[in-house]
């Protein structure tokens, strides 16, 4: 997920928030559809919603691999897919979690701790030669933090992929597809 690109410029990727029936195999259906049709996924996050009968899958898709319209329409053909919202990155709130273990000698550890504090990250574990930090926030913020940590030497890094919901201001625009689905 360290490949997650910057989202502030004109996006070459798009966020799909896909509401699905919370049933065995539904993630496999979605991911095998992407594989079968040759669509690329940047990141994918899935968890049950407030209603345990449904899960929400947040997929960041590469719209250069296929037109977004085709991806959405093909996803809709899955019987378990109930609703798809396209979230414009500029009009949605996004969050992602990152954990990173950084190689740092004890005398320099303070610099990394300071960096984590500036970014409002957390120290999760401390060793003699390394430190594990976490940060949740917008993907951009994570990108910046990751870049700064890189200078110290990242041993391991894991990002979750983003989750997103539409912004609540009046301009919030989600193109929602609910009843237009067939087949």
């Amino acid at each position, binding site marked *: 997920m360290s490949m997650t690109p910057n989202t502030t410029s004109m996006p070459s990727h798009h966020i799909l928030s896909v509401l*699905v*029936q919370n049933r*065995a*195999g539904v993630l*496999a*259906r979605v991911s*095998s*559809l992407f594989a*079968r049709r040759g669509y690329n996924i940047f990141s994918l996050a899935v968890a049950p919603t407030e209603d345990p009968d449904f899960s929400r899958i947040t997929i960041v898709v590469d719209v250069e691999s296929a*037109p977004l*319209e*085709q991806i959405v*329409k*093909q996803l*809709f*053909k*899955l*019987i*378990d*897919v*109930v*609703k798809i919202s396209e979230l414009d990155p500029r009009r949605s709130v996004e969050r992602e979690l990152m954990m990173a273990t950084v190689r740092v000698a004890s005398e320099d550890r303070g610099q990394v701790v300071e960096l984590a504090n500036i970014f409002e990250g957390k120290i999760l574990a401390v060793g003699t030669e390394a430190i594990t930090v976490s940060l949740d926030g917008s993907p951009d913020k994570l990108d910046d933090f990751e870049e700064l940590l890189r200078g110290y030497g990242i041993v391991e890094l894991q990002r979750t992929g983003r989750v997103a919901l539409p912004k609540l201001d009046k301009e919030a625009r989600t193109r929602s597809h609910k*009843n*237009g*689905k*067939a*087949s």
Partner: protein
Amino acid sequence: MTEQITGAQALIRALELENVDTIFGLPGGCILPAYDPLLDSHIRHILVRHEQGAGHMAEGYAHVTGRPGVALVTSGPAATNMVTPLCDAYMDSIPMICITGQVPTSAIGTDAFQECDTVGITRSVTKHNELIMSADEIPLIVRQAFHIATTGRPGPVLIDVPKDCLQNMMTWYWPTDEEVLESLPGYKPNTKGHSRMIKEAARLILDSKQPVLYVGGGVLKARAADALRELAELINTPVVTTLMARGAFPDSHPLCLGMPGMHGNATAITAMQKSDLLINLGARFDDRITGKVSTFAPDAKIIHVDIDPAEQGKVRRPDVPIVGDCRLVIEELVKTIKEMLANGDAQTDISAWKSRVSGWQEQFPLFYSPSEPGEALKPQFCLEKLHELAPAGTILCSGVGQHQMFSSQFWKFEEPYTWVNSGGLGTMGFSIPAAIGAKVARPDRTVWAVDGDGCFQMTAQELVTASVERIPIKVAIMNNSYLGMVRQWQEMFYDERYSEVYLSPELPDFVKWAEAMGCVGIRVESPEEVEPAIALANSINDRSVVVEFRVDAGEKVFPMVPAGFGNDDVLLHPNQNDRREFLR
């Protein structure tokens, strides 16, 4: 009322309540419990010799009735043998229910005997599939499966049933329509076209100078042949019928141009190329129709009617997309056009276009060089004679290859649901089991299966099924002792370097093989034997008949748009090449 029955009893009862009259299947370990209550059911079970046969029979049944064909097989190898028919049905939008046995729920994931991940394997070749995890789920999942298979864009649905779910007791219930719909919150096919789009389409049609109705299999799925005829006659517009739509519009109708595409006739291909408006009804701009997409019908505006929204814009962006059932949309379109005409709108004069089209028809009829005395039989001649001598209402099934194209070209289809073939997947060996399924569904009709010698050897064993179950079909083998279509490509595109396409004319002995399977076998080697042999075959109705036609191996299918080329580059029959400029 709380009736306790086994999951197996519930499964068979659910199929009965879904009005299933025939199951094509073959039992085995995990599905065994379901075969016991079948003994007490009125449902007819047809015991096949290979599970693939059951799948194609179910498809043939569905092709000619519109009702879902049902296949019942066991787990593991039986399920993998079903993958081809499932994919075939998926590609051609055939409603089909496949029920597979599975190892008991406690054994799933342990690599148990005859275990395979059936739902995983079939996920991309079914419209939907489900693994049942408890006997209680059976009635709802069966109802969902029939609903999904037959509504929207039809397709195959697979139900995987573990053995313990068949053996366990459950409390019988039968879900209502509302309960089925509520259980599928994500499945709401749109059947009624958008009225503003239909108005826009009507406007484009009235303004078009060079329209063509491009008719696909969706018209047959929607039972829209009558509506199509009314529309075509109302706007007096030429009709092309794709491979999947042969029979949707009568070939004898003056507006019918026949089949377009890779082996379509020159008029149908060229009319689409030169058109200013393609009215696509239930077709999907398949690569075999469009040729090179960037050069396909470059000046045409597109009206695209399809029940599957994902087909809109997948290959060619429509000017007017209409998501809906072809019959409902065509009927609405007819009504709208009539209203516009009644309100003083007039249709643009298309007589110049139509005379141009008839000019092509005169110059470029389908053509083959008849054999001179002593020369080998021509497959096209055999097809013409088969059609000429066929009893009214005969259903024609075909395998895949040259004989399939000759069938579509030289048979004249007059009514819907008389043509059964494997279009999208191109499954060799389709015709014999599909013909058996068609004959089971329509015992009143004569069913001919046209097959190649290559195809026949893939599924011929199902003729044993036909004999034992007393399902008399007729098979015409076009034996050119080659994988003919591959041979044609090697001749034309690989400098006549023939690689692994020669099958041998003598082996197997098709007549003896037919006789060994309980059929009448007839061999035809010369033109004068053709008519008597066909007449004899048509007169035998108490068993299946196999007629082997020894045909010219050098015969090629023309016209042909080579793969990767545009339709303007269609290769005509060599005898018509000097007239090429008329296609401009």
